[in-house]
């Protein structure tokens, strides 16, 4: 309780409130711009956070991401181009409403549901994180090793349709994290005698390269392909009839945030997954599933509340274990390290007010979302007029500044050049890049815990399953690794019995 008051005191200074307001505007704008996802937005915010106090930095990131996730719905509804990946699940539905002339109604519903979902997620975060942290104090290398494995596994399975490519992406990330001095033996690794590689590849510049420069390449090579003119809202009352619709689908408003919170709390899975799952679940439980995709608000209620809840919940594993919930929180962890704070259960003992200040920021962000979101809907037509071909070169220059500012060396720009183009090629060939970033941020944690565990157990692999929690986590992870194989075997067995030959054939043709 005392911590909460201290946290409120930390946040309610004019300086931090100003930071929050600016981050709101930044989050809304970047979220609404197709091509700047929430991850890219947070990556661009990083250089600015260097000059903020830890609590201001965390508050600005929490606010920006909460608003960006909502703002992504705006171009989703008006242009059918989701501004952030987590709006993709219901962009078609919202666009169908716009075509019926209900654009502002769709956005009004999605705004109110985002606020409610976000607040529910913030409540879940504030209550579960401290409890989980107490529990996590008992964890040793074995548990951390498995948790990290589990997070990476989830990331590989969730991002993209090909887990193998996700896994390769993770391996690339892990290997990139090893460049530089090894922290156990002190030996330089993979530096090839290049002096500037000795200190390693900085995570933040890698991230700017992989996400931001990669996106610049992707967007500029596709300029002028999509519809540019927004249909625009008819200028009607945004919240007209919103209350009635929300009341009608109130169970979706309960189910959506709960699904979002659970998926967000899983290490490795984030808000886009939450939105897809909630949308599908809403359709499954709906009384009128045939109306979905024809401009029916039910799925929007479920999915837009779910992704905002999930945005808060992804911070749970990130703060408690130091294992990011998604790529946005991977950046947050990177920033925490820059500020000299190591995420983990100990943070709750040493720096409790700071942790609680994150919770307070999320509450403020989700409350401010209501008026700011309304404003954004009103000016959406003007906002969407900023063309990609102007924005992307500006983003590129910002990437240069950001990567340079990390340790004021040109090395950062070298990194974004190399990794930006690598990321572009990877994405073109179906390799998801979010796992690469998760692998990179978790590389050190994974290796350190693995090596210490190996040394402590004298190479006995069984020691990894020696403690009950470790054994549970380990067996679950291994089961997930082999799940595609098990699925394949089952499919083969079924095929042999000849019952579902047609069905499995259909399935394989879908995949290709």
């Amino acid at each position, binding site marked *: 309780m005392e911590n909460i008051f201290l946290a409120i005191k930390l946040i309610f200074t004019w300086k931090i409130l100003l930071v929050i307001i600016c981050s709101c505007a930044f989050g809304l704008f970047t979220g609404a711009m197709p091509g700047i996802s929430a991850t890219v937005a947070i990556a661009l915010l990083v*250089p*600015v956070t*260097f*000059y903020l106090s830890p609590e201001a930095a965390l508050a600005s990131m929490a606010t920006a991401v909460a608003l960006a996730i909502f703002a992504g719905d705006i171009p989703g509804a008006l242009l059918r181009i989701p501004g952030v990946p987590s709006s993709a699940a219901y962009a078609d539905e919202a666009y169908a409403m716009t075509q019926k002339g209900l654009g502002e109604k769709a956005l009004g519903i999605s705004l109110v549901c985002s606020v409610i979902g976000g607040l529910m997620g913030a409540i879940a975060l504030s209550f579960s994180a401290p409890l989980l942290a107490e529990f996590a104090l008992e964890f040793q290398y074995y548990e951390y090793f498995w948790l990290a494995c589990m997070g990476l596994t989830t990331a590989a399975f969730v991002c993209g349709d090909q887990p*193998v*490519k996700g*896994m*390769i992406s993770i*391996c*690339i990330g*892990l*290997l990139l994290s*090893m460049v530089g001095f*090894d922290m*156990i*033996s002190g*030996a330089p*690794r*993979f530096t090839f005698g290049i002096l500037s590689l000795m200190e390693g590849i900085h995570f933040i510049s890698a991230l700017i390269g992989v996400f931001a*420069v990669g996106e*610049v*390449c992707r967007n*500029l*090579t*596709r*300029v002028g*392909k999509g519809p540019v003119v927004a249909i625009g809202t008819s200028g009607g009352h945004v919240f007209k009839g919103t209350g009635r619709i929300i009341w009608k689908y109130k169970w979706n408003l309960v189910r959506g945030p709960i699904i979002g919170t659970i998926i967000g709390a899983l290490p490795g899975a984030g808000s886009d997954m939450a939105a897809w799952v909630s949308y599908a679940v809403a359709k499954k439980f709906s009384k009128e599933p045939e109306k979905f995709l024809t401009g029916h608000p039910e799925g929007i209620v479920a999915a837009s509340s779910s992704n905002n809840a999930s945005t808060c919940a992804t911070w749970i594993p990130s703060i408690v274990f130091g294992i990011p919930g998604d790529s946005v929180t991977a950046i947050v962890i990177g920033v925490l390290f820059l500020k000299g704070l190591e995420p983990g259960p100990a943070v709750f003992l040493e720096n409790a007010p700071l942790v609680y200040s994150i919770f307070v920021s999320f509450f403020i962000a989700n409350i401010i979302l209501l008026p700011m979101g309304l404003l954004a809907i009103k000016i959406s037509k003007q906002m969407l007029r900023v*063309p990609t*071909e*102007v924005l*992307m*070169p*500006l983003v*590129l*220059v*910002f990437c*240069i*500044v950001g990567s*340079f*500012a990390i340790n*004021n060396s*040109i090395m950062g*720009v*070298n990194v*974004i*050049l190399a990794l*930006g*183009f690598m990321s*572009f*090629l990877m994405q*073109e*060939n*179906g390799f998801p890049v979010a796992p690469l970033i998760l692998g990179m941020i978790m590389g050190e944690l994974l*290796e350190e815990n*693995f*090596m210490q565990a*190996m*040394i402590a157990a004298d*190479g006995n692999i069984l020691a990894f399953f020696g403690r009950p929690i470790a054994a549970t986590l380990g067996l679950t992870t291994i089961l997930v690794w082999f799940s595609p194989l098990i699925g394949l075997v089952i499919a083969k067995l079924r095929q042999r019995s000849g019952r579902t030959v047609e069905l499995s054939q259909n399935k394989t043709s879908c995949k*290709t």
Partner: protein
Amino acid sequence: MRINDAILGIIIIAVSIFIIIVARSFPALPGVPYGPGVFPTIIAGCMMLGGFFLIFKGIRHLRETGWLALDPWAKTLRTYITLGLIFFALLFYILFSEDLGFAITSMLILFLLLLWTRGRKRLISSLIISVTFSLAIYLVFVKFMRVPLPGGLMQGIL
């Protein structure tokens, strides 16, 4: 631009083998059986397995996908020039920012890119955008946030 998975698999296996060879050369600490090369070797091993899987999959689907499939946008020369411009813009910054300074390098990069993406008709507005944005970024980061961006030619002026 979709390269067949089999080719990607071969590249990935080659990289993994290279990493394993490099990792074997890392000096081990005396007395500790698990040196700095252990973990990279394991990860590269996993990556190699993934590579084999991709080769298997790529060959199985070869008839549908071919060795190289180009999306419509990837067939145009314009795409490659755009990518080339982004590449050389960054390279130009790396090579010349120290001498020319941030503001001038950034102006040149921006103007070139905007000219390419927006066409010659909007030359004036592109010029205005690149000059104001570069100066604004320079002033905000140098004066306000104390990032020592290279001053270069404009060292004394700004």
